[in-house]
């Protein structure tokens, strides 16, 4: 499938910029990310890392520029369920009245629409056994199947992350986006998450994860993007985590902060 001369790109951005009511969060993003790798996005707070992920889910519309993901424009990729998203802990209302099983099942909603038929219009319980089976398998893959009937608010930090991983797995996407998947996570959960992501990449799928955990980046990532309101660098971990590159990446924001 992969043409050795032409590497498959999972993200292709040309001149992309994004703003929040006039304040530029990301500018001049020209980016080519190779598929089938575990790519880490690092950078200081407020550098636009989460914004980059939200551009890829279509939640945020770019101010200008063109953006393609998995070889498709964003709208097509969304309709094709190509991109899955694991949110940051603070983006979720943990008092929401929903169980673990029902959260994971929401990963199948887009697939049930794609498979068509009248069942897609029914409430989640009735969308069909195959979808429920896939959701269950996804829960088992990150070992949250024994928590299926718990309300999500009753979970630990690591369990919460794994539940949202299970939702993404159930979605069967080609690209998994994760926003701080390792923040506030216990050792066992971290192990399960990293192992799953490596396996996912081995199957030819791609992972894009925002993180502050530089040691983990050094150990696990195949590719690193350094973001600081623009792309400050792209390369393999050794190169990007070298002192000069990091300093260059983190320096600009301090400079701006002084002004």
């Amino acid at each position, binding site marked *: 499938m992969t043409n050795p001369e032409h590497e498959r790109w999972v993200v292709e951005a040309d001149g992309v910029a994004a703003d929040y*009511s*006039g304040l530029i969060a990301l500018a001049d993003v020209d980016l080519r990310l190779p598929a089938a790798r575990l790519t880490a996005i690092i950078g200081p707070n407020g550098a636009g890392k989460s914004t980059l992920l*939200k551009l890829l*889910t*279509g*939640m945020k519309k770019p101010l200008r520029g063109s953006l393609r993901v998995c070889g498709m424009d964003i709208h097509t990729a*969304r*309709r*094709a*369920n190509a*991109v*899955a*998203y694991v*949110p940051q802990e603070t*983006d*979720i*209302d943990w*008092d*929401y*009245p*929903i*169980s673990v099983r*029902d*959260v994971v099942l*929401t*990963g199948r*909603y*887009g697939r049930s*629409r794609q498979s068509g038929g009248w069942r897609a*219009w029914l*409430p*989640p319980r009735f969308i069909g056994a195959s979808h429920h089976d896939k959701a269950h398998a996804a829960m088992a893959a990150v070992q949250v199947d024994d928590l299926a009937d718990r*309300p999500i*608010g009753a979970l630990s930090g690591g369990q919460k992350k794994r539940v949202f991983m299970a*939702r993404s797995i159930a*979605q069967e996407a080609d690209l998994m*986006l994760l926003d701080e998947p390792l923040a506030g996570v216990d050792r066992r959960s971290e192990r399960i998450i990293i192992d799953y992501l490596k396996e996912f990449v081995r199957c030819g799928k791609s992972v894009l994860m925002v993180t502050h955990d530089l040691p983990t980046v050094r150990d696990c990532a195949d590719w690193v993007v350094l973001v600081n309101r623009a792309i400050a660098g792209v390369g393999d971990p050794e190169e990007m985590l070298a002192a000069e590159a990091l300093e260059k990446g983190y320096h600009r924001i301090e400079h701006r902060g002084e002004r």
Partner: protein
Amino acid sequence: MLEALVEFLSGIGTAWANHLLSWLSYVIGWLPETIAEPFQYQFMLRALLTSLVVGGVCGILSCYVVLKRWALLGDAISHAVLPGVAIAYLLGAPMLVGAFISGSVTAVGIGFIQRNTRIKEDSAMGLMFTAMFALGVVIISRIATSTHLMHILFGNVLGVTMATLVTTMYIGAFALGVVLLCYKQFLVYTFDPNHASAIGMSTGMIHYGLMLLLTLTIVTSLETVGVILVVAMLIIPGATASLLTHRLPRMMAISVLVGIASTTLGLYFSFRLDVASGGMMVLVAFVIFVIAGLASPVGPIRQQLRRRARADLNAD
């Protein structure tokens, strides 16, 4: 063509309404004399059926209002329907149509201000709804009596006509149908809009769809509880239900029960005590909320019981 359709629909609706009314009066016939007595009047039966529909629809929408933190938005839309009602009255058009148009204009206006200026959401809402409300007050002061204004502001469920009842039932059925068909979309959108977007749902459509349903619900509740108090019926049932369960379907069921209980009991007490029906309905809802709060799994009563049980255990 359109007129024929409206006539056809209202014919079917009236037949259905009469059917339900006779069924209701049959059920009430089984109740003890003291409870059944007010409902021997036809206008009380109509009021009861309207209250049931309004209580149920408010109960369902209330869950989304509470989960999405739209309490202030509900308040804004409910106040903003006033000029629409006044203009419709002036033109002799149906009140519901005018109310719906001005409610929608406000909802869109709030979104517009928010996106295009630096003004934050709460200020945008406060700004739009007070301006619309003021417009309504000014128009009404010119054209109608103060009794009329009072009826719009605080509802007049005893004066519900057959035509209004039929419209209320249609809107109620529509809202229920949409929530049933779009349950998954609304669930994902209120829980994690990012995921909704990632799996190809149109978050803008869902957002405005939900807002449209909210506006419709508010419009149907106008006659029952009035402009000022309708927001209570959009907050209290959902808030009460959220104290008692951790599942959305159950929360919706409880919320509908609370909505129906407070509108019907409120109607009954308002007849018995000869007080304003809208106010009574909201008071009943609040009492139910307080009881639920005290008796909920994490409420003070159960906590006290648990503490005592633990103390007994230690004493042994």
